[in-house]
């Protein structure tokens, strides 16, 4: 459960976010969309506590984000950044095991979770490989496994508290098959009660898996709603300044944006 209560963010005099209000109930998927510089990543960073809001507040599981202590919040909230640099030659499974840092569940259980998480992102075959030698897409899959491992109990639905997963452009470096895999994972863990907020550029991919889309522009929240409500040529023109056509998907009828 995540409430963004009229949040504003100004960093060194530059307003990045302006009066953003958003509610993400437990088990929903929210996709943040908008052109570059719209404030999507900034909003994600306010939610994750990396920036503290200069106006308003973010409430996470009933408590303001700023009042959570790092070790406590890390037990139920995981964050996947756009890209991370790792200069040291950990193996892929060691990287995933770092996701278990906030927990004291013991080596046996952690090893189980690590291999299950790697399997979930189709990266079991990378387990022994050195992380620094992986391709961009492989690295991102291993990082995804790491954040899944961090909130694994929540992803399996075996936890009393509400899990939260924040993803910043998770599919940017994935091939087609893995983009679909990502959507499947996101939908599956949402059903089991994990609240997902992610930054996405692909409108169709977002339409497929998000319960609510958030259109952002210049630090403002332009529109919030479901894919069928928001994906229309007028709004896409207004937010992205591109002419697009929207048609129903031939099979499931979800809106399909065509350039």
């Amino acid at each position, binding site marked *: 459960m995540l409430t963004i209560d009229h949040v504003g963010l100004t960093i060194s005099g530059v307003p990045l976010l302006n009066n953003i209000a958003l509610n993400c109930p437990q088990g929903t998927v929210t996709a943040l969309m908008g052109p570059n510089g719209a404030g999507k990543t900034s909003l994600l960073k306010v939610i*994750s*506590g*990396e920036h503290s809001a200069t106006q308003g507040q973010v409430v996470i599981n009933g408590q303001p984000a700023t009042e959570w202590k*790092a*070790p*406590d*919040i*890390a*037990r139920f*909230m*995981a*964050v996947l*950044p756009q890209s*991370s*640099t*790792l*200069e*040291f*030659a*950990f*193996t892929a499974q*060691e*990287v995933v095991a*770092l*996701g278990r*840092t*906030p927990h004291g569940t013991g080596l046996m259980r952690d090893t189980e979770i690590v291999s299950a998480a790697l399997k979930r992102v189709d990266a079991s075959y990378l387990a022994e490989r050195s992380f*620094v030698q992986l391709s961009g897409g492989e690295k991102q899959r291993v990082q995804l496994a790491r954040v899944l491992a*961090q909130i694994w109990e929540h992803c399996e639905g075996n936890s009393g508290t509400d899990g939260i997963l924040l993803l910043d452009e998770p599919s940017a470096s994935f091939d087609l098959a893995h983009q679909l895999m990502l959507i499947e994972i996101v939908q599956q863990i949402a059903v089991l009660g994990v609240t997902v907020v992610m930054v996405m550029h692909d409108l169709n991919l977002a339409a497929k898996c998000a319960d609510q889309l958030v259109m952002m522009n210049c630090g403002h929240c332009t529109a919030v709603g479901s894919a069928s409500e928001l994906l229309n040529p007028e709004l896409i023109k207004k937010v992205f300044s591109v002419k697009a056509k929207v048609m129903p998907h031939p099979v499931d009828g979800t809106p399909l944006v065509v350039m």
Partner: protein
Amino acid sequence: MLLLALLPCTLIIGLMTGPAFISLADIWAIYTGSGVSQEQLIIEVIRLPRVILSALVGALLATCGALLQGLFRNPLADPALIGVSAGASVGASSMIVFGSLLAANGVLLGLPAISLGAFVGALITSVIIFRLATGPRGTSVATMLLAGIAISALAGAATNLLSYLADNDMLRRISLWQMGNLDGATWDRVTVCATIALLLAVLIPRESRALNAMLLGESEARHLGVNVEWLKRRLIIYSALGVATSVAVAGVIAFVGLMIPHLVRLLVGPDHRSLIPLSALAGAILLVAADALARVVVAPAELPVGVVTAILGAPFFLWLLIVQRGRD
């Protein structure tokens, strides 16, 4: 495991070698109390404290190297390379020159003034380098090394200025610091060094998991529940303490902190839970061996051990740069 067996071997070889060679049988005889008195004197007063001090200093430097590399998230960090040792050496030199004005008998606040000076110098330079080199996007290696060069130059100038002000006795002690030398080993120094090493041996391993998380990046570590700001402060203090102690007792010994964690990482990977203890062990072995070498190469005179580690370390550093360039 191999390292564990190697340490006693190098320690014994360290005891045997020197201007006067003492055989294994003679060392055993001294140990059992039936040795020749002159040899016993050499072992007890000169070689044993020296070998133990080398081991401690080597362990401290290698551990601090591993810590700094984790803190900067960069495998090229080394206490001497980034100017921390130089800062410590200025601190120590100013205490040698001005210490008598501040404190009687070289003791300040109950601590040996030179160690205290070295610690303050190391701490200040660590903080300056860290502030300069670390931005919101992580640490810039170029800035880190350049800042290290600038600070080393500044520290060098400050030490030269201090040498100019110093009298003969002070001058000799200052130049000893700059070269890195273990021939001043006494049981007093061993005690100081061992105390600090023991303290750090208790404190540092507790940070291993957090250090592992730090390697992913600062914000990633924060999201993994690490209180990054406090962790950074503790790491800076620990490494400053370790480097300062080693500089205070043995002067500036370069490249141990760079080479050892690297070699250990090649063997066991970057996990700090094994990296830190093994680096300490390997650092001890390297410095005992380097010091033994320093004593025999030009016997009966001896080389400063800093020269030996630099001869080994500088090519190693160049090799690292070549490997890194190949990867980019």
